[in-house]
């Protein structure tokens, strides 16, 4: 029996509600429960998940909707009480620091002390509008939000560029600005390597490896995955590269991206060829066909990190990929499959690149759903893909999907190796290793009882300074029976090695290219962004504010709720009127 509870005019962020959904699901006597804001999109999710009710239709975007599937009606009261208690806790804590928090731009700007950066993590359909508001207030924008239309991204970035501002994102999962970790980020030592990256976990992998080698990164600027598309034209990447070039404290510039559109890649390379500092590039998925005098083209994330460290030390680049040789696992002939279940999209992508390269004869099947790679034997899945995160927390926070995948593939007699990543740092689960460990143990044990052996490989992306602690996470996973690899590169090569494959490291010549002269100047507002501790207005997820504040930077929490009650037409009307400049008035 389905029961609907509507709490009018009580906006809460989706992450808060999702975590609450998880908590409520665990209640005895509750078959299924979901709690979301009553937006049209969420109503569809209710319906498609079998929780559609007539009452649901009455809910408005600013109402919290709870649909409970329970046998007894008394359960509904319990759920209601639980929700009240949880939300009370939420708003109670907000009351305590009421004076420090804003719920509109005006107040946020009053509270902030010379703000220069807006960190935006509100739902995608509203994010572009608030980003525009931020730019109009002269703030750089870090857009954690995803589901932002490409046209909006183009418009925002052009607008930002004209104003001498930077838009990082959308879908920018990570970033370090003048030593300040933003969104899902690791605590990395400061240093003379400057990173520009179009990918979240790519930046995390590279910066944490650099940290473990004893070097540091003061600025890791995320651009968002579409920055190097033809339409966007690398606006953010180019401004960022120029800023790092102008910053005398930066010795090496490292650029990470998936392979961009050809003409955009040329545009970026042309700028890099104008730069005198040593540069490392990684166009993940492109096997480098040449090296350049001043530009090192890397093949993997680890390589990009290691070479950056070497260049920063004034050494000659020299990278040898590593494979863990001492893996004692007896595989049967029938065990041929590599299964990778990732929380980090770029790590999954790198795994797919390497597996594909190792087994070139296995033609990949067409990409479907969230498979980054699916061949006859192997599969690599990005569990952070939208397909898995609709109405659910990201796998870096929620272990559920990974546990399910580990069990399914562990029971598959064809599976030889399972690979998992554990991305720690701000924003991630407090102790993911501990959540996954029992399952890893059980999967290995089940296989043994089935008369098989199995390798579970794991890599931890993080640093010892991270709240979860790198060593502790590694130790927990090791105790569960997982084989720990230092990097994703090593994990994937080890997996490939176990099933009898090998990835050749490209051996290439140094070539020189003509380049056209490029204006490398950059707006001083961008220079001051990377050269001073940012003063942040955080619009959305409150945990980001806490993270920024605990890193010693100023941050004003803007408890955003959709303006105009979330009515999209009215929001557009307001946007139009607020920025109208014309001859009709």
């Amino acid at each position, binding site marked *: 029996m389905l029961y609907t509870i509507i709490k009018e005019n009580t906006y809460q962020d989706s992450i808060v509600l999702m975590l609450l959904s998880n908590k409520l699901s665990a209640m005895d006597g509750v078959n299924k429960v979901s709690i979301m804001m009553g937006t049209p999109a969420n109503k569809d999710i209710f319906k498609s998940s079998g929780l559609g009710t007539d009452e649901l239709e009455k809910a408005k975007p*600013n109402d919290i909707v709870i649909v409970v599937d329970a046998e007894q009606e008394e359960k509904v009261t319990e759920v209601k009480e639980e929700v009240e208690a949880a939300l009370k806790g939420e708003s109670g804590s907000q009351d305590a620091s009421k004076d420090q928090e804003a719920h*509109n731009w*005006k107040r946020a700007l009053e509270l902030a002390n010379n703000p220069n950066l807006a960190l935006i993590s509100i739902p995608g359909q509203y994010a572009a509008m608030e980003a525009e508001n931020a730019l109009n207030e002269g703030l750089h924008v870090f857009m954690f939000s995803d589901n932002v239309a490409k046209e909006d991204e183009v418009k925002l970035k052009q607008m930002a560029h004209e104003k001498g501002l930077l838009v990082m994102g959308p879908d920018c999962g990570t970033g370090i600005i003048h030593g300040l970790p933003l969104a899902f980020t690791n605590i990395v030592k400061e240093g003379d390597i400057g990173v520009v990256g179009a990918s979240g976990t790519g930046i995390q992998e590279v910066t944490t490896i650099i940290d473990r080698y004893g070097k540091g990164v003061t600025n890791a600027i995320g651009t968002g995955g579409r920055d190097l598309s033809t339409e966007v034209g690398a606006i953010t990447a180019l401004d960022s590269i120029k800023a790092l070039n102008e910053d005398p404290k930066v010795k090496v510039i490292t650029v990470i991206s998936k392979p961009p559109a050809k003409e955009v890649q040329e545009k970026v390379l042309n700028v890099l060829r104008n730069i005198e500092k040593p540069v490392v590039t990684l166009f993940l998925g492109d096997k480098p066909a040449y090296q350049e005098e001043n530009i090192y083209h890397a093949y993997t994330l680890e390589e990009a990190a290691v070479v950056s460290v070497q260049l920063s030390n004034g050494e000659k680049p020299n990278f040898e990929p590593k494979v863990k040789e001492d893996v004692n696992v007896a595989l049967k002939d029938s065990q041929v499959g590599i299964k990778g279940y990732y929380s980090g999209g770029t790590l999954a992508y790198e795994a797919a690149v390497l597996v594909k390269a190792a087994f070139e004869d296995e033609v990949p099947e067409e990409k479907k759903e969230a498979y980054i790679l699916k061949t006859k034997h192997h599969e690599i899945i990005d569990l952070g893909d939208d397909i898995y995160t609709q109405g659910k927390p990201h796998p870096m926070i929620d272990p559920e999907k990974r546990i399910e995948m580990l069990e399914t593939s562990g029971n598959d007699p064809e599976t030889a190796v399972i690979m998992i990543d554990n991305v720690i740092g701000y924003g991630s689960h407090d102790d993911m290793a501990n959540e996954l460990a029992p399952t890893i143990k059980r999967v290995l044990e089940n296989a043994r009882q089935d008369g098989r052996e199995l390798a579970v490989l794991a890599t931890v992306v993080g640093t010892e300074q991270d709240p979860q602690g790198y060593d502790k996470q590694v130790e927990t996973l090791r105790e569960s029976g997982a084989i720990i690899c230092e990097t994703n590169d090593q994990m994937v090569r080890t997996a490939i090695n176990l099933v009898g494959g090998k990835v050749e490291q490209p051996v290439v010549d140094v070539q020189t290219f003509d380049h056209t002269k490029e204006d490398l100047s950059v707006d001083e507002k961008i220079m001051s962004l990377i050269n001073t501790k940012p003063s942040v207005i955080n619009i959305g997820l409150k945990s980001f504010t806490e993270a920024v504040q605990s890193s010693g930077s100023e941050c004003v929490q803007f408890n955003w709720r959709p*303006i*105009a*009650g979330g*009515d999209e*037409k*009215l929001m*557009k*009307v*307001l946007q*139009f*009127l*607020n920025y*109208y*400049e*014309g*001859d*009709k*008035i």
Partner: protein
Amino acid sequence: MGYKTINEANEAVNQKIIAAAPFLTDVVPAKSVIPELEEHVLLHAGPPIKYENMTDPMQGSCVGAILFEGWAEDEEGARELLENNKITFIPCHHVNAVGPMGGITSPNMPVLVVVNKENGNEAYCQMNEGIGAVLRFGAYNEQVINRLHWMKDVLGPVLSKALKAMEGGLNVNVLIAKAIAMGDEFHQRNIAASLAFLKEVAPIISALEDVEKEKRTEVIQFLADTDQFFLNVAMATGKAMMDAAATIGHGTVVTAMCRNGENFGIRIAGMGDEWFTAPVNTPQGLYFTGYSAEDANTDIGDSAITETMGVGGVAMIAAPAVTRFVGSGGFNDALETSNQMTEIYIGENPNFAIPTWDFKGACLGLDARKVVETGITPVINTGIAHKIAGYGQIGAGTVNPPIECFEKAITAYAEKLGFKE
């Protein structure tokens, strides 16, 4: 023309409100200043409404006005005229006027004349009849009609003489500034302003040699008894100020808010005389003994012009004494209400400094954009009428406009400026 942004246009509207110089200059028969008020024409509160859609109190007021004018012998005759569409209705707002509650104004009723000397425009409002059985709440018994005649024959002419004796009339801004410091917010509470008004006119009235002593005494007594007398002055003042501000012709500042018991209507500067309406809410508040929310009429009257100019419920903090009466908790609630209003009013009026608000000026310029953006609607203090004509006032409280009015207004304005979805 000539504003770069809507903010600039709105600022111009606000400057026009601040610059307004309202003077109460006269009391005259309505028809002498409102030519539209011919035989069988009545004014009503709120946006346009048909007789059959009026709530019972407003219909009762119509009967009373017809009896007062002598267009019918009795109630039956009056109802016959009304039901057979023999009476033409015009909203007060369409003829430079405002009217409390039902707002029913007939040609021979005396109206207060407020001149805005900055802009040269005038605004009118009938005079407050006191409390109890009164026309504005739909009462039309003999006592009500007799009082209306007395107001026409005695109160109006006497006040007219008194006002004319003052050089240039009575400066209303000064009175408001004084009374706001004495705890009035000019909608629910006008006692300080009414007394200050009496203080200005009493010596003049007492000295009027061409008025019989008995009449002078009656007038003074009436003014002394009528705590809300100044409300109607404040309303005409608000209308004179906001009509002048509306001449800016651009922007999203609200220039009128009013209700007819069926619909709430607003105007914004950028859309001229166009009404944006939505069904009215019913006030929430405290009821006199024996009555409850079930007896309450829906929201009615042009008196929300006070909130339009930035006083009334919006300036709750100026009048802590009435916060209890209108159903809110106390000083801190009043403070919270006024503080919240600063999110939708974009300025403050230096002419009306509020001591209890640390001398911050009263709210100024209700921006329809901000209302839609925040979902916060202005708080309107209001009397609550019984839903059956003739019972009169049964309580007081607060009411909020339906947000749809503001949504419609800004959407229409955006479209006027070229917005396309």
